């Protein structure tokens, strides 16, 4: 029953409960000493164990495995016997190894394309859909548009290859009508645009529903009041709709920033054979190709580690910035 109080967690040296407290109807010990709390919460503690064990094993143990970034790791020697090399593996980053720079450049270009296109179009789509008057039509369009989110990248890439490939229906149609064919599949020159198009096809509908949810929370009275004050549609958009969307936009941008250096690993690895590494190597595929395929474990782990740290720094930094501008961001610091 101590739970219902909702107070701060009890500590060992907290004074004993007031004597006027009603006698416990349950035999469960509600003592505030550590053994007492252990007895009281043993079921909860037991419940947490399996999930916690999995998180520790497959999430936190690998984080420790990052020490190989400081080793000349040899799989047959293992973590214990591989020689330590200090920061030698990080030289690739500092000295600008051309293969690393190529991966970095591709990553940044794809990221900018994706934030520019895949972030803005769903907002426009949500505004368009929100302005429809028929609820049924809204539901149908939503249902259709966010279906691709649930398809795997293998399926999405297959669909694109089949439709836009050299012998696909689009090019067959163009050829029969003596029009210029669309050379996008396996074409290194437009690979980044193709990748962005695929992300748009897969995720635009999904991103859209998050914005739609935010739009539906805007108080209709605000629109009515602004209309009474003589605001036209454009002014309503600017003064009512956008402020209502700002929170979600900031939240999604922060989340995206955390993954800023993660640009579609599965998606790209699937198509790398066809376009070559020059156009398609990004940081994640560099880590995979260089480390697991080529066996340069230490350097790859170093690149992966720095990439992870940059991601965390970006999220925390963006969140801080959001707080400065008075947005809630990812989390609000608890008022204490």
């Amino acid at each position, binding site marked *: 029953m101590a739970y219902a109080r909702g107070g701060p967690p009890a500590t060992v040296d907290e004074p004993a409960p007031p004597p006027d407290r009603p006698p416990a109807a349950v035999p469960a010990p509600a003592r505030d000493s550590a053994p007492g709390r252990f007895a009281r919460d043993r079921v909860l503690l037991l419940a*947490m164990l399996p999930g916690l064990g999995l998180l520790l094993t497959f999430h936190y143990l690998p984080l420790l495995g990052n020490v190989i970034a400081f080793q000349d790791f040899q799989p047959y020697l293992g973590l214990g016997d591989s020689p330590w090399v200090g920061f030698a593996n990080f030289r690739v980053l500092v000295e600008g190894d051309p293969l690393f720079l190529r991966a970095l450049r591709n990553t940044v270009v794809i990221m900018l394309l994706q934030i520019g296109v895949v972030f803005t179009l769903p907002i426009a789509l949500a505004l368009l859909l929100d302005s429809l008057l028929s609820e049924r039509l809204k539901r149908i369009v939503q249902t259709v548009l966010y279906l691709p989110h649930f398809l795997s990248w293998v399926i999405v890439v297959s669909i694109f290859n089949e439709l836009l490939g050299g012998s696909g229906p689009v090019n067959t149609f163009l050829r029969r009508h003596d029009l210029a064919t669309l050379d996008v599949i396996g074409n290194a020159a437009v690979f980044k645009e193709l990748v962005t198009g695929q992300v748009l*096809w897969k995720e635009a509908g999904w991103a859209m529903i998050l914005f739609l949810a935010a739009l539906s929370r805007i108080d209709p009275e605000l629109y009515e009041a602004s209309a009474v004050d003589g605001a036209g549609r454009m002014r309503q958009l600017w003064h009512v709709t956008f402020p209502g969307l700002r929170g979600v936009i900031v939240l999604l941008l922060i989340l995206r920033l955390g993954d800023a250096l993660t640009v579609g690993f599965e998606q790209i690895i699937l198509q790398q054979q066809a376009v070559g590494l020059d156009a398609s190597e990004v940081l994640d595929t560099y880590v995979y190709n260089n480390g*697991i395929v080529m066996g340069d474990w230490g350097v790859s782990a170093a690149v992966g580690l720095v990439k992870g740290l940059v991601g965390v720094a970006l999220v925390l930094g963006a969140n801080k910035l959001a707080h400065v501008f008075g947005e809630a961001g990812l989390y609000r610091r608890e008022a204490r």
Partner: protein
Amino acid sequence: MTPPPMPVRALKGVVLTVCCALVVVPFAGIVSTSLATREQIVRSGGFVIVPDEISFAAYRALFTGGVVPRAVAVSVLITLVGTALSLTTTTLLAYGLSRPGSLAHRPVLMLVVGALLFTPGIIPGYLTVSTLGLLDSYWSVILPAAVSAFNVVILRAFFMDIPAELVESARIDGAGDGQILTRIVLPLSKAVLSVIGLFYAVGYWNAFFTALLYLNDAAKWPIQLVLRTYVVNQQQLGVDQVGTAELPPQEALQMAILVVSIVPILLVYPFIQRHFTKGVLVGAVKG
């Protein structure tokens, strides 16, 4: 709101129709091609929008034997076992964390939130799985993905919203924490649990990279790897890969594999859609 002028409405209609067509037409084409006859596929340049005549030859060939039935069985196994494990561990962990003031809940919660921020890299993840001796075991695809910290956070928020009076009255009636979970909390959380379960299931069914990384033995490949080999990489399906000696057209076979990999998603989609519109997850994302 007054309806906007006619040209605006027409323009909206056109834009939305085009958007929907971009999603629907590829699906229709894939299904149609998988059902089309050889003559029609040749005639239409490899992709059929509306089949003249329906032929199940490709499906018959795929399911008589060879790689596809095995891959489907593997994927179904991984999906069922994985989802069951994920739902159980996620629910228990979220429940264990849902009582403010309980012993050790704060440090554990920090670990869960920390797991959201710090994702292990590819190489350390691979080393962990190989050190544990899980390479080439189906567990390698299941265990690393079993607990999603994000789902734990969502579910915990949901559990904490359950009125404290309900829990209190059960406790007065003599229920322990275990009974409170099974008699009060779980029945009240069916909707959110089914959404989270479906998300896990879709994730396991779609698992591609973990399978590529950890399952080297081609006999253990799930459907996504088969799809990559024969559809994305265009490797020819021969008599060894299908059950019949008389081969249907490659295009039809490829499309049929694609359909097989999409159908389970289409089957669960209406359920996701139904519970999703209640705002279960959208609300949680913001909260």
